[in-house]
């Protein structure tokens, strides 16, 4: 049992190692954009587009990357010339093509208009002031893929917006699976809401909510202390501050 927990902790450490460069990127952009907004008295959409494009496009076009979307979304009214604005780029739809700019409807009177400030990837990081992991979810409005979105608030006294990346879950599976296979135990990687990202248990499909007694309390405890036991010979280990958790069950 001790051995299994050590294995799980070691798998979690490997997951953190894989995730860290992705999270570091979001943190780097957050600081970069904070300086950008602090250095300018007024920012318009063309300025933020040009700046964000330089940061985002190389990332979504890199070979073999799990990043399929990246950019900045402005707080409504923050930009001088656009009430609502998304500077977001998506990976090329096919090899040999270029990155696509996310097309959006910015007419709030239109019925198809969606106020992005209500969506989890905006709402949570802005409310908590901290980086947040949303998903996995089907992003049919943006990437048209099964996606995890990592977003961080950009502060300039108030909130200028959020910056972040979309990760393709199918590509993440290939990146993350080796860490899970290190352990003989059945391991399930979940988000803070117990939704499965990846599991070595064949009964637990990606996207399913893991239903284990006491799991939501255990996830909250693991978020605070890093590791906690789960009823009936299980354990939950936080993967650092990625927002992901490893659930080990016998």
């Amino acid at each position, binding site marked *: 049992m001790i051995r299994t927990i050590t294995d799980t902790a070691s798998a979690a450490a490997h997951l953190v190692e894989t995730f860290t460069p992705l999270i570091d990127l979001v943190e780097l952009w957050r600081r970069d954009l904070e300086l950008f907004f602090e250095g300018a008295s007024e920012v318009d959409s063309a300025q933020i587009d040009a700046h964000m494009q330089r940061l985002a496009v190389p990332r979504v076009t890199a070979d073999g990357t799990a990043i399929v979307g990246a950019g900045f979304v402005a707080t409504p009214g923050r930009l001088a010339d656009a009430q609502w604005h998304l500077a977001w780029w998506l990976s090329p739809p096919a090899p040999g093509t270029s990155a696509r700019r996310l097309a959006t409807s910015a007419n709030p009177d*239109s*019925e*198809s208009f969606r106020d992005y400030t209500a969506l989890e990837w905006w709402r949570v990081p802005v409310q908590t002031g901290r980086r947040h992991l949303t998903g996995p*979810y089907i992003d049919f409005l943006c990437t048209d893929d*099964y996606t995890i979105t990592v977003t961080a608030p950009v502060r300039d006294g108030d909130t200028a917006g959020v910056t972040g990346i979309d990760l393709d879950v199918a590509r993440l599976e290939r990146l993350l699976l080796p860490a899970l296979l290190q352990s003989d135990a059945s391991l399930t990687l979940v988000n803070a*809401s117990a939704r499965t990202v990846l599991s070595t248990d064949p009964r637990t499909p*990606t*996207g*399913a909510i893991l239903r284990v007694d006491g799991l939501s309390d255990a996830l909250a405890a693991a978020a605070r202390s890093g590791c906690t036991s789960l009823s009936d010979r299980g354990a939950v280990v936080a993967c650092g501050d990625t927002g992901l958790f490893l659930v080990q069950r016998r």
Partner: protein
Amino acid sequence: MPQATVMMDAAHAVVYSALDGTGRAERVTQRLTDAIVSGTLEDGERLPSESDLAARLGVAVVTAREALETLRAQGLLVTRRGRAGGSYVRFDPDAAEAITRSRVDALSRLELRDLAVHYAAIAGMAAEVAADRAGEDDLQTLTDIDARADLSDSGAARRAVGRFQLQVAATSQSLRLVHVELQLQAEVGPVLWLCLREEEYRVRSHRARLRVIDALRDLDPAAARSATTSLIDEAAEWLVAEKTAIERAKGQAS
């Protein structure tokens, strides 16, 4: 040897069945006509440019242009020049009614029922899977879509049905179900949801949404499926009744 050909299995029969005879331009025209007539695209809404439209539908630019020409000739689109230039949707209730009647008239009862069965298979399964996979945020999103549905307007009610079904499919976490749902909404939706022109059916669609949301909250896959497929069955029954009425009227006129 001839017998071997006849004994082809079902999967091969599907692969080798004759392709739809209509050309690409006609299919693009049909797709857009349906969307405009059913109110999926709003009156005054601007269409993507010819090249964007062609890219999205996976057709050549000339094909998209040809389809747009046809729609302009039918008065379903108007062209504006200048800075805000482009093709804009024009919804004329009388023209829409005439187009819809001929569309329903052209489909046999068998085809209408088959559309409904196909759509129920996809939407019902999506609801069933969603009942195990809905999180709090998903329930909130679905509740919001229902709350924003304007039941006094048939176009708005139609769009609400589409949005809700798409969100349920997304909640199932299956990308394939989402893609089929999108495809079927474009092809089947405009005909299937004609009943939403009647207020009674708009109210029924709202009640069905509430039942689906409750079933998702209760982790009850069977209830989620049945609330979804019952509404589709009712829509199909309305459609056949409407078709019969059209045919009777035609019979009396001749």
